[in-house]
């Protein structure tokens, strides 16, 4: 188990309940929680995927494709960790859904991205860049499921939305059993997914004390409590250990 190091919260906690107008202003600028997700222990070996059945996918790789459940960056951080505000937003905080679509692509018989965040009601554009059949099945529980087919490169993406916050909704292809993606569906814009440098940044937070959760598909979840005020930036760090 990792110990999270959170800069202690103080007076800021008292400023949480301002008027709507006041936190509306704060959301414009707001506070930031930033940090990175470290990984300790032996990096697991990712199983090779046999794509011989799908030559069009296999041809997209110069090195043999592998599973993507654990991606440890060269700087010792962990990629594909979904970091988001789990609780602490003012009651009744209902930001409008982002209108910019989140795009998920099926490319080389892998999902790109493998992990992503999306707001409730925000459009998800589902693309297929492979000239072959994928089905994409969403297995939410708080959300209704869907299971659609895309038998070839898509000319226009299929659009879907999620109606309820749910961390995580898993997406899978049944034609290619290894294809797996995860969507963190939240009712606010305070989420991030760690990339190649293992960092995250949650910007524009209203003042308050927040439970920040970091989710990883193999290593589970960790939480941290952070209190922010005004436009300050607090740093927090998560560490996942090899199992």
């Amino acid at each position, binding site marked *: 188990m990792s110990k999270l190091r959170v800069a202690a919260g103080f007076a800021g906690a008292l400023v949480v309940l301002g008027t709507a107008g006041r936190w509306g202003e704060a959301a414009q600028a707001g506070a930031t929680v930033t940090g990175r997700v470290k990984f300790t222990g032996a990096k697991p070996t990712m199983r090779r995927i046999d794509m011989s059945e799908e030559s069009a996918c296999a041809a997209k790789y110069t090195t043999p494709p592998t599973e993507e459940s654990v991606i440890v960056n060269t700087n010792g951080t962990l990629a594909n960790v979904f970091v988001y505000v789990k609780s602490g937003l003012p009651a009744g905080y209902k930001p409008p859904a982002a209108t910019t679509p989140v795009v998920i692509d099926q490319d080389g018989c892998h999902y790109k991205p493998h992990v992503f965040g999306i707001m409730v009601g925000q459009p998800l554009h589902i693309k297929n860049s492979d000239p072959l059949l994928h089905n994409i*099945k969403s297995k939410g529980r708080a959300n209704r499921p*869907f299971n659609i087919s895309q038998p*070839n490169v898509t000319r226009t993406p299929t659009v879907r939305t999620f109606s309820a916050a749910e961390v995580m909704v898993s997406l899978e292809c049944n*034609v290619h059993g290894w294809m797996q993606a995860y969507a963190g569906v939240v009712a606010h814009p305070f989420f991030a997914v760690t990339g190649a440098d293992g960092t995250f940044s949650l910007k524009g937070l209203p003042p308050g004390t927040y439970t920040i959760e970091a989710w990883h598909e193999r290593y589970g979840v960790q939480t941290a409590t952070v209190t922010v005020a005004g436009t300050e930036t607090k740093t927090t760090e998560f560490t996942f250990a090899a199992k």
Partner: protein
Amino acid sequence: MTRRTAVVALLGSVLLPAPRSLLLAQDTTAGKVVYEKWCAGCHGEGGAGDGPGAAAMLPRPRDFTFGIYQIRTTATGQLPTDADIQRAIDEGIPGTAMPGWRAQLSDAERRDLVAHLKTLSTFFADTTMRPVPVEFGDPPGGGDEAVRLGRLFYDSIGCRKCHGDAGRGDGPSAPTLEDDAGLPTFAADLTQGWLFNGGASVAEIYRRLRTGLDGTPMPTFSDLLDQQFLTDEELWRVAQYVHSLSPARMPEVRDVVHAPAWSGPLPADPEDSAWAGVEAYWFPLVGQIVRRPRWFTPAVQGIWVQAVHTADSLALRLVWNDRSRSPDTSWLAFTGKVLAAVPGDDSVPPVAEPWPDQVAVQFPARTTTGMERPYFLMGAANDPVYQWRWVSSEGGRTVAGLARGLERFDTLPGSPVGRALYDEGQWRVVFTRSLATADSANPLQFGVERAIPMAVFAWDGSNGEHGGRMALSTWYFLALDTPTPPGALAVPVLAMGLTLGLGLVVVRRAQRRARNTG
């Protein structure tokens, strides 16, 4: 609403003009009573698909708590309509353990049940989730050209990935298919329409293409219409093609397999074109649930049996669909998942191995009369059965022997020649043997004009089947028909000719008379 108020409402609606909703009043309390009596045994008290009977079933009984239904008229992800739920209750889900309840429960009971099922998932209470049936339209005219086009679209939208090139559920993705609960599942064998979960008419198949089967790997193809990847008519063609792969209904089950007398060499090759002209008999198979380990989820649903004989030899052809050519290590994970999903009742839990496919034909080991037959489950210690066993491993092996129950099998000399072929999800095996054998140790001497009891067993190794985990048939009869004596065919032809000739004479006479009098 109580049962009584529902009845009063119903009566009232007969006497007075009442809104339709009152006429169809549903009673969740009454529905709960019906549910607990008839449904909870499999679907569980709370509807989570976890009743006492559930563990032996694959696919599992529906878990109602997620509000995810396979057979709907609504788009993927939507709730089913009341009529969709009603249909599943009334008619059952073919190909699964779910029977239809129309005969068992009254109209009111079945309607109340729908109301109760909708209380088991919170989604039904969400007014924003009103299910809307998809507009399906009418099928375009069918015919050979429609079927030919349907095959092209079957390929272009990737059906073969799971359902296979011949539609037998043996596509390259078949070994990894799982349902929403992560349990192993399989693509429908499109040549056995009577097992289609949502019905096998062209319209029903088309609906499954439009709505998908939520909870399973089967997606919707509706988005392809919106994206103009495929026209609606082209999707109907796929349904027409799929429909063309199955017989109109489940094959008729007949008690006696007639083996006609054959002139010329016996068709010992499973691919011999002569077999196309030989009557085929359908033996439905069921799981072996008498002895431990009992097996409720057999993969092989039935076997086609054909036989011909000459004066001194017999050829018996068995044809059955099996989505895996076992032993096959690419199915090993699937095998493990099946065995884990259906916990056996053996003393030691089985560990998945790449087991072979097998088939066995069984006859009594002694001459029987009338309906007298040995114990169907491989005989008994004091009343053995004579069996031919074929195993797919090591290029295929055939042995003959005596079985005395499940545990004991003693091979005998004089085994038949077995020749097998696996083709696109189908095994075809031909056994040939002389009718009589010189070896007196061999108990079964075939003879014409005597119906011999016969039964079959089948194992799909990749489905975890070996030993007592198998599919079996009941007893049937094999009758070696006597050859038609030369000239026998000439008699009816002669009689017909004579009748025709006499008729002509009579007609001509009548016409002549009519002319004379007219």
